[in-house]
C-alpha cells in the first residue's frame, strides 16, 4: 500500500462536503467535470507513487551537496520533476493560452497534497515554482512574463522566493540587500539571502529568483521594499540563456528535515535584476506568493500528518503484541495492537487531526476558486476576506496538529518508530519545519489576532462566524448532531467574547498585553474551526452506510469530546490577560 492520502477521503471532501463539482458551472471551469478532476487526480497519484515516494527516503539519507561551484541533487529528483513536467502539472491552474487547463485551485491543491505526502522535499521544487509563476502572472510585465513566466509554466525554469537575510528573517523591515538602478533600466543587486529553498541546482535550465531588496533613497522600513527578478542565468529577450548572473551559493544549510531540497545562503554580487511592478511595492506583491505558500505549508503539514497516520494505522493492524485486557490466557495468540485502547486513542487523534486539516486546507483552496470566479464581486470579496482570516489558521494550526500527529505515529510504532528503518521519524523531522517557515507560528498567531479578526471592523471574523453558524443551524434539528451543534454554538459565543475583549484592550492602547497570548488565541480559533469542519463532515456522513462514514462520525465524536473541551480553559487563559509573558526589560529569564 502506498499510504499517501486516502483517495476515498479526498473524494468525500471534494464532492460530498465541498461540492467542488458546482465549480464546473462557472465560466472559467466549464470544460471541466468530475471526470476531468478524477483523471487529473489519478495522474497526480500515479506520478506521486511511482516517481516521488520512491526516493523519499534516499533524499533524506543523501542530502544535496555543494562542490564549491554547483549544488548536486539525487538524479531521482530530476526524473520525478520531469514526469511532473511532462504531465503538464506546472501550468495546470493557468489559462489555456498559457498552456494550462484552467484546473480549479482546489483540485490542484489536492494534487499537491499527494506529492507532498509522497515526498515533500521534491514536491517543494514544483510548488515554489508555481508560487513564483503566480506572482509574475499577476505583476510581471508582458516582456517579463515571456522571459520568466512561460518557461516556468513549461517546467523548464524553476522559481524561488528570496525574502530572508542572515540577520533578518521574520522582520523584513531590516532587509539590507540593495538594488542600484542602472541606465539600461535594470538594477544591480548586492546582499545576502538566507534559507533559500531550491536556491541552486542543475535540475532546471534556469532558476528565477524573486528577490526583495531596497532601492536607495526609498522610504524606510517595509514601505521601501521592492521586488526583483534575478535569474541564475541571464536571459536574452529572445529567450536564449546568457552568462551566469551574479548569484552565488555561499553555503548550504544542513537541515533536520526537508533534506532533499537544497537550502542555500545566496550571495548577490552585482546581480542583474529586473524590477517587478512599481518600486516599493515588493512586499505586497510577494505576499501574493506568501499567502499561497502559507496554504501550501498547511497542506504540507497535513499531508505529512496524513501519511504518518496511514503508516501508523497499517502498522497497528499488522503488528501483534499482547492480549486484550480481559484475556488472561498467556497461551492465546497475540492481537494486533490496534485492539488496544491506548493505540486506538493515538490513531483516532491522528485521524481527527489529519482528516480535519485536509478539510480545512481544501476549504481554503476552494475559497481561492470562489475569489477568482464567484458570480458577483461581493461574493468574491467575501471569499477573499474569509480566506484572509483562515490563512494563518491553515498554516499555523495545521502545522501544530501535524507535528502532534507525527509524534503519535512514532509512538504507535514504539521503538521501531524511533529507528530510521521506518518512515515515521522522517515525517516528524520533515514536518517540524512547517511550524517555522513562511512565517513562524508565533507570527501566524499574531497575524490572526492582531490583523485578521479585526480587519474591516471585524468583518472577517463575522464572515467566519456566519459560516460556523450556518453549520450549527443545519445540524441543530438532527437528533444525533444536536449535542455537537450546541457545544459548537457555545464555543463560538466564547470565541466572539474573547475576540472582542482582546481587540478592545488593544484599542485602549494595551497592545502588548492584549496580544501577548496570541498563540493561545490561535489554538482557540483553530480548535473551534476544526470542530466546525468536523461537524460539517459528520453532517454529510450521517445516515450513510459503511465503515468509512462510521469512521467520520467517530472522529467527529472524538473531536467534540476530547478537543473542543479545551475551549473554556483557553478562553479563561485569554480573558485573564495575565502578564506572564510580558516585561522583557526584567531580566529574570537568565541563568545568572
Amino acid at each position, binding site marked *: 500500500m502506498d499510504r499517501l492520502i486516502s483517495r476515498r477521503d479526498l473524494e468525500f471532501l471534494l464532492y460530498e462536503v465541498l461540492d467542488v463539482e458546482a465549480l464546473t458551472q462557472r465560466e472559467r471551469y466549464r470544460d471541466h467535470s468530475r*471526470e*476531468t478532476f478524477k*483523471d487529473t487526480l489519478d*495522474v497526480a497519484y500515479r*506520478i506521486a507513487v511511482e516517481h516521488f515516494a520512491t526516493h523519499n527516503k534516499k533524499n533524506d539519507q543523501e542530502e544535496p551537496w555543494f562542490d564549491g561551484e554547483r549544488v548536486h541533487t539525487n538524479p531521482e529528483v530530476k526524473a520525478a520533476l520531469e*514526469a511532473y513536467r511532462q*504531465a*503538464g502539472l506546472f*501550468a495546470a491552474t493557468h489559462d489555456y493560452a498559457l498552456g494550462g487547463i484552467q484546473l480549479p485551485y482546489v483540485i490542484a491543491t489536492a494534487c499537491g497534497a499527494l506529492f507532498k505526502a509522497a515526498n515533500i522535499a521534491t514536491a517543494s521544487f514544483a510548488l515554489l515554482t508555481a508560487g513564483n509563476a503566480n506572482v509574475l502572472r499577476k505583476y510581471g510585465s508582458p516582456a517579463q512574463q515571456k522571459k520568466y513566466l512561460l518557461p516556468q509554466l513549461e517546467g523548464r525554469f524553476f522559481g524561488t522566493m528570496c525574502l530572508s537575510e542572515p540577520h533578518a528573517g521574520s522582520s523584513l523591515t531590516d532587509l539590507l540587500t540593495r538594488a542600484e538602478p542602472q541606465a539600461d533600466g535594470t538594477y544591480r543587486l548586492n546582499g545576502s539571502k538566507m534559507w533559500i529553498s531550491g536556491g541552486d541546482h542543475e535540475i532546471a535550465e534556469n532558476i528565477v529568483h524573486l528577490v526583495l531588496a531596497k532601492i536607495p533613497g526609498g522610504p524606510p522600513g517595509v514601505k521601501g521594499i521592492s521586488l526583483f527578478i534575478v535569474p541564475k542565468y541571464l536571459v536574452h529577450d529572445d529567450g536564449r540563456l546568457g552568462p551566469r548572473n551574479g548569484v552565488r551559493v555561499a553555503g548550504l544549510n544542513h537541515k533536520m528535515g526537508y533534506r532533499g531540497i537544497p537550502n542555500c545562503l545566496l550571495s548577490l554580487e552585482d546581480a542583474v535584476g529586473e524590477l517587478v511592478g512599481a518600486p516599493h511595492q515588493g512586499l505586497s506583491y510577494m505576499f501574493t506568493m506568501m499567502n499561497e505558500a502559507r496554504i501550501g505549508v498547511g497542506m504540507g503539514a497535513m499531508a505529512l500528518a496524513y501519511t504518518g497516520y496511514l503508516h501508523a494505522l497499517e502498522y497497528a493492524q499488522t503488528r501483534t503484541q499482547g492480549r486484550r485486557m480481559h484475556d488472561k490466557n498467556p497461551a492465546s495468540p497475540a492481537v494486533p495492537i490496534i485492539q488496544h485502547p491506548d493505540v486506538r486513542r493515538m490513531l483516532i487523534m491522528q485521524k481527527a487531526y489529519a482528516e480535519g486539516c485536509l478539510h480545512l486546507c481544501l476549504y481554503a483552496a476552494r475559497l481561492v476558486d470562489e475569489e477568482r470566479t464567484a458570480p458577483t464581486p461581493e461574493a468574491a470579496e467575501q471569499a477573499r476576506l474569509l480566506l484572509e482570516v483562515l490563512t494563518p489558521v491553515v498554516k499555523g494550526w495545521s502545522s501544530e496538529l501535524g507535528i502532534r500527529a507525527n509524534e503519535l505515529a512514532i509512538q504507535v510504532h514504539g521503538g521501531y518508530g524511533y529507528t530510521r528503518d521506518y518512515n515515521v521519524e522522517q515525517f516528524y523531522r520533515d514536518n517540524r519545519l512547517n511550524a517555522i517557515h513562511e512565517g513562524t507560528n508565533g507570527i501566524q498567531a499574531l497575524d490572526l489576532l492582531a490583523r485578521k479578526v479585526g480587519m474591516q471592523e471585524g468583518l472577517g471574523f463575522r464572515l467566519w462566524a456566519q459560516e460556523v453558524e450556518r453549520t450549527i443551524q443545519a445540524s441543530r434539528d438532527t437528533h444525533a448532531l444536536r449535542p455537537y451543534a450546541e457545544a459548537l454554538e457555545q464555543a463560538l459565543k466564547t470565541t466572539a467574547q474573547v475576540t472582542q475583549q482582546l481587540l478592545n484592550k488593544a484599542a485602549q492602547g494595551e497592545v502588548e498585553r492584549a496580544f501577548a497570548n496570541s498563540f493561545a488565541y490561535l489554538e482557540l480559533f483553530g480548535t473551534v474551526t476544526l470542530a466546525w469542519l468536523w461537524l460539517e463532515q459528520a453532517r454529510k456522513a450521517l445516515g450513510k452506510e459503511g465503515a468509512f462514514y462510521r469512521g467520520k462520525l467517530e472522529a467527529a465524536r472524538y473531536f467534540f469530546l476530547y478537543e473542543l473541551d479545551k475551549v473554556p480553559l483557553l478562553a479563561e487563559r485569554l480573558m485573564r490577560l495575565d502578564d506572564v509573558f510580558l516585561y522583557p526589560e526584567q531580566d529574570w529569564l537568565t541563568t545568572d
Partner: protein
Amino acid sequence: MKFVAVIRQVPDGESRLKIEGGKVDLGGVTMILDQMDEWAVEEVIRLQEKHGGESVVVALGPERFEEAIRTALAMGIDRAIHLVAEGYLDPITQAEALAKVIRAEAPTLVFTGGQQADWDSQALGPALAEALAWPVVSWTTQIELEGETHAKAKHDLDEGAEVVRVALPAVFTSQQGLNEPRYPTLPGIMKAKRKELKKVPVSASSKVEILEQTIQEKSRLNKMIDGKDPVAAAHELVRLLHEEAKVI
C-alpha cells in the same frame, strides 16, 4: 493504417478486495486500466506516431470501463468504441463480441494485454485472433512493421525468445519490456473529453458462469534467519527470496 488496442478495467493491485455473498465486492476499490493493456495502448500510439493513420481503443465491459477508456484517450488514442455489457462474460464470449466490431474496423493490427489481471487468464488475445481468424503473436516485446502487409515481432518464450514474421492483420499480446507507457497529460485529459466515444450495447450469454469467488488468505511465514554469521545469513536470505518468495 489503423491500430486498435483492446483494453479492460481491473482492480488496482494495491486495493484490498473483500468478498460479499460469495462474490468480490468492488465497492470502494480503485479500478485502473489493466497494466498489460496499458502497454498495448502505448504501443498502438507509438505505431501511429511512427507510421501515421488512426488509433482506436475498443473495450467490452460495464459502464465503469469508461474510466479506463478515458485514460487511453488521454494518453493519445484518437477514438473509442465501448461495447457495454454488465456482468461477467467469459473470454471466448467476449472475443466473439469484440471480433464483430473489430472486423468492421478493418485495422492493420490489434494489440491487447498478454494477461488479464482480474481473471488471471491469458485467453483474450488468442481467443480474439481465433474469432477473427487472424494470426496471433503472444507475449510481444518488440514489433516492427514491414509495410502494411507484414510485421516482425519478438516474443517471449518460457526461457528465451523468438523473432517471428507475421502476415497482417494480426493480433499481438503484450509482455513486460514492450515499452514504458506514458502518463496521460493534463491537456490530454481535456482533449479526451472531446474525442469520439461510441457506445454499443452488447447482449451475450456467458458460456462460463461464476458460482463463487474466494480470496487467498496469505499468512506470514515468520521465518527468522540466525544472524550470528552475517555472510551466511545474507546467503540464506537471498536463497529464500529466490527459491521461496520468488521475488529475485
